[in-house]
């Protein structure tokens, strides 16, 4: 194709996709992606897929390569409602995203009874929450935190650049690969950016990691909701405790906690907040927490780190940093250097642990308390348009 002189456009393709799948017409090329399921050893496939929600299997083409298979049971309700939104979203978005810090979905196949099976990357090292909680055995440094956060922010940035909101970022959705890399998983609540005036649900994101605008029932929001969650993860990594641990865990308590720890949202620090549907006029106004106060709790990460944390946990989503702005912050480039992957602390969990991770419904905490009725997964599908 010739150059278009009118637009001064070069003829070469501007975007190169990293990988392209093979076409069936070419017999010499290896098996295409869709046939990955066929590459799985039939024996193993049967063994692992039977009865378990998750198992591992080896590829026939490359026995060294392990994959995990997540089984989605398709019950009777399928006939009435179709495949659940969670599964649909997960498949849809993971198929799109290809990034080292996002869990890779290799293929999807169906087994008998029309159960869905997702062939996922094998991540046997557990999740970030396990590392945070195991205060007795695991210790890590600010450089490790920086490394983890950097990987998380890259994944978030990549999602946002591809117009996808994750909406459930939290430590137990951050799985750890065998080489120490962090992988963002569980896209069950993800959706793509909305068009103007297209309402989204505010009942999403695990309560402790939910940003204030969602508590105020904003229906029009953007990528900054994920940044708040990332800020919560950041604070949790430093303090080794959930930042906004509201107990009992309801929205009123969460708003109270946010007021206490960050400051009360008012029209001054957040123009237009009082117009939001769920906004309650506060009885007393706590001023925005100053940097010195933040420093008290998070001195370990240094001044620049606290600066970044404050900017990620800004009440007004317009003032909160975007994923790109976060990555442009000087925190990443200043000393200490982010730990190398091989130096990061690890805690092996095995395939069972990964199974536990992936089995969890969104918005569930590992202590097993029945919280699912209040949050996340119970989504008002009418409002979704998802």
């Amino acid at each position, binding site marked *: 194709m010739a150059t278009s002189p009118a*637009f001064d*456009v*070069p*003829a*070469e*393709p*501007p*975007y190169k*996709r*990293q*990988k*392209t*799948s*093979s076409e069936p017409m*070419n017999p010499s*090329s*290896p098996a*295409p*992606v869709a046939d990955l399921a066929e590459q799985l050893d039939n024996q193993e496939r049967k063994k692992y897929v039977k009865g378990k929600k998750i198992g591992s299997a080896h590829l026939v083409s490359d026995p060294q390569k392990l994959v995990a298979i997540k089984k989605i049971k398709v019950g009777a309700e399928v006939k009435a409602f179709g495949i659940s939104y969670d599964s649909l979203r997960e498949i849809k978005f993971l*198929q*799109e*995203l*290809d*990034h*080292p810090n996002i869990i*890779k*979905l*290799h293929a999807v196949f169906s087994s008998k009874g029309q159960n869905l099976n997702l062939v996922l990357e094998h991540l046997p090292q557990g999740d970030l929450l396990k590392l945070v909680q195991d205060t007795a055995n695991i210790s890590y440094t600010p450089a490790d935190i920086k490394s983890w956060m*950097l990987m998380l*922010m*890259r994944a978030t*940035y990549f999602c*946002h650049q591809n*117009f*996808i909101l994750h909406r459930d970022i939290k430590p137990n959705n951050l799985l750890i690969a065998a080489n120490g890399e962090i992988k963002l998983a569980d896209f069950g609540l993800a959706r793509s*950016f909305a*068009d*103007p*005036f297209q309402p989204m649900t505010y009942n999403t994101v695990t309560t402790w990691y939910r*940003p204030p*605008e969602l508590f105020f029932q*904003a229906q*029009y*929001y*953007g*990528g900054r909701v994920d940044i708040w969650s990332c800020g919560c993860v950041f604070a949790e990594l430093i303090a080794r405790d959930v930042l906004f641990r509201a107990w009992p865990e309801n929205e009123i308590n969460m708003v109270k906690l946010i007021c206490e720890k960050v400051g009360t949202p008012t029209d001054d620090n*957040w*123009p237009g907040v009082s*117009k939001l549907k769920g906004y309650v006029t506060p009885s007393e106004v706590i001023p925005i927490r100053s940097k010195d106060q933040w420093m008290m709790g998070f001195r370990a990460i240094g001044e620049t780190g606290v600066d970044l944390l404050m900017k990620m946990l800004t009440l*007004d*989503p*317009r003032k909160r940093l975007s994923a790109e702005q976060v*990555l*442009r*912050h000087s925190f*990443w*480039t200043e000393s200490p*250097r*982010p730990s190398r*992957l091989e130096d990061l602390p690890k805690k092996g969990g095995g395939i069972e642990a990964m199974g536990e991770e992936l089995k969890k419904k969104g918005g569930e905490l590992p202590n097993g308390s029945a919280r699912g009725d209040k949050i996340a997964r119970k989504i008002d599908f009418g409002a979704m348009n998802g």
Partner: protein
Amino acid sequence: MSRQAQSRPQPTTRRPADSEGQDEICPVCKSSRYLTPTLRFLINPECYHKFCESCVDRIFSHGPAPCPIPGCHKTLRKHKFRTPTFSDLQVEREVDIRKKVGAVFNRREEEFEDLRAYNDYLNEVEDITFNLINKLEVEETEKRFKAYQRAHEREITENASLAEQERASFAALQKEEREQARSRREAARREDAEEKRQLEENRRDVLNRLASGQDAESVAKAGQQVHLKKRMDRAAAAERQRQLQAASASNGSGNVVIKGLRAKQKQEPEASVDPFGGLSFEGRKYYALQDDYVWAGVQETKADVLIGAGGYDVGAFTGRALCEAFAGLGVFVGDEMDERDREKMGKENDEMATKGAEVAATKGGNAAKGKVKDVKMEDPF
């Protein structure tokens, strides 16, 4: 001892003829080996002058005393006197100096990353040694020597203990080898005796049988067969033994240390951290984003307080709309296929292509994938 040697060591002054004549006479008491065959000479590493044993006893028994050689004012102590290893005292002195220098400059070849560095080091060591031996710039050289010793105290002791260990293990290895050789010889001897004994037995057996009146021919044949079989057995056993030893030897070679330069480690200066990990979305060639668009939908959205307060980003929407509108332009599926096939040829074990890429390829309008530009995934930072 000649006068020359007293003043300055001159390696050329030493000739075999010298040691035959003058060197056999004690410079102090002038007694010679010819008259007293038991004469023993001792030297002191302070000045390397040699005296006979009885002179040393006589002069230095009552404590330190000056060297009796005229012009040499070194104070000598009796306990420092020793029998020289070499008849040439220049060599003796040089060996002593080399020992002393070697004890401090004991770095090993493995410690160096390239040959050049190792050679430079050797050159420096030799410089110092040469200066000390030939008494050139003595003070300055001594200073260099001391400075090095101070600066590398820890490494020196480490290397010394390492060398000690190596010596010990080498000695143990040698001892073991000697032991093995001895037992092998022993075994061979036993085997020999055994063979002889059996031969004898066999012959006696044959004689007995002949005596008891059996057929001579068949008896001889049977006896020969028995003998042959036994010999074959022994040969087989020896062969097995040899193989066993060969196997154990090749196992042992596993812990043989190959000396040489240290494996090269590229110490690249670490690149500064790239927070984006090489990811770039600056690939827009077909459009430019503006801050504001005069379009009712956009303006209304911007004006809506509710939308702004919730954090909805109109810029993200317009950016996406433009991106999606232009995505797929300039993507030529055929070209990419060719390129991919080429890549696959070179890289057989190419992993599975992502499903997402396939989706993007088939549906040109898929924005997400079309935008990704040559992302280098292997780069962790």
